[in-house]
């Protein structure tokens, strides 16, 4: 079975399953919206202070939403035994994992990235900088999903899994957060942002190369 058709088969399967779990995806979407709109109540409505806080808030909200959605990645297939069948499929598990991570990002985190410019404008961020923020999120959130997948796989079937995943994964999110927000702030200040984007892309390549390996190894351990 060619790797392309395997990738698409897993993607199609995830799509069908996601169609039946629309409420899950909606809750994550609105979680992002709610977390982002909490801050004006905390920081005060004047756009001056909101603008300085804005990029950080949007990024932290996106990061927390991605973290919240992580359990959806493998838990369902782990509990009902589908993961075992994948292991026996004779197809490379790493490729199945990559496809599942991509599907997870596509269905839960991409909507957030699309929504983010509008939330950004709510924080008084200029439309031009908001689009750059959306671009940093477009490159950054897949890295969050990739790193998060390792945590999700490690804590499969472990009690207090969700809190534990957050504890394991959040420290690893820090570099992405730094350069994601850094890029947006640079855009706000009209400073050159290519440096930030090149580092974010470097993170993407590094995590694309390493995380699926760690995740499939962790899945095999969970299924022992």
């Amino acid at each position, binding site marked *: 079975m060619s790797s392309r058709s395997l990738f698409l088969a897993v993607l199609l399967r995830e799509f069908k399953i996601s169609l039946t779990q629309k409420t899950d995806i909606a809750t994550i979407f609105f979680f992002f919206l709610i977390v982002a709109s909490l801050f004006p109540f905390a920081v005060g409505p004047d756009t001056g202070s909101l603008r300085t806080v804005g990029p950080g808030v949007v990024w932290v909200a996106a990061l927390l939403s991605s973290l919240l959605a992580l359990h959806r990645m493998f838990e369902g297939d782990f509990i009902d035994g589908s993961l075992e069948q994948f292991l026996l499929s004779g197809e490379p598990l790493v490729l199945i994992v990559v496809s599942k991570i991509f599907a997870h990002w596509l269905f839960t985190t991409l909507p957030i990235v699309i929504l983010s410019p509008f939330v950004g404008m709510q924080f008084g961020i200029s439309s031009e900088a908001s689009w750059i923020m959306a671009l940093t999120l477009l490159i950054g959130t897949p890295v969050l999903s990739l790193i998060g997948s*390792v945590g999700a796989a*490690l804590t499969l079937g*472990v009690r207090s899994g969700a809190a*534990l995943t957050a504890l394991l994964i959040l*420290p690893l999110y820090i*570099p992405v957060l730094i*350069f994601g927000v850094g890029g947006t702030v640079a855009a706000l200040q009209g400073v050159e942002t290519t440096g930030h984007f090149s580092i974010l892309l470097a993170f993407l390549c590094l995590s694309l190369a390493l995380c699926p390996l*760690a995740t499939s*190894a962790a899945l095999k*351990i969970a299924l022992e």
Partner: protein
Amino acid sequence: MRFWKYSTPQNFYPAAKKIAAVFFVLALCFGIPGLYIGFFVAPTDHQQGEAYRIIFIHVPAAWMSMFIYVVMAFWAAVGLILNTRLSSMLAQALAPTGALMTFLALWTGAFWGRPTWGTWWVWDARLTSELVLLFLYVGFIALRASIEDPRRADKASAILAIVGVVNVPIIYFSVKWWNTLHQGASVSLTKAPSMASDMLLGMLLMALSFWMYSIAVSMLRVRKIIRDRERNSGWLNN
């Protein structure tokens, strides 16, 4: 090869006690002169007065916190790849000491920062990385604690340690870049006082002492772990 003889927990158990004793003595051999130099030879610093003497435990603790994490990740990887239980036990034994060193680095950093820069916490690049390193240690220990089966805990924590060790430099340089961007390098521990030779000697001796201590205490903890894991496979209680 003689070394392989010690590779099973059963053979390593008695040897660990001897190793611990030797390294405790070595820790004292380096520690006592180190402290003596630190307090009775090193002169008062013209800028920071006597407060800088905290450096003699702050820097060794910071070095050890980074060093132990790498050694821990190494033994965890060996245990994962070669499926040798003793290596995973060694990684498990190192984690609490590493976490302790990180905590001490943070504590002494705060106590040094207060008189020198007027605040208990400074978002300095190295201190912030130490804080993140503490989270990595806590994550490693928490993951181990929440998995019952010791073998699965060994393998899962090994993967986390490997992913962690890849991220430590990335986190350090990201934080370093972030620190210089937001605050400039005005307030930072990297500008340590000009290191007179005897100050440097004192710090190096203390670093060696901390290193010996870490090995010794990890050996004791490995024995404790072996006792916990092998308690009813018979050979332990004769």
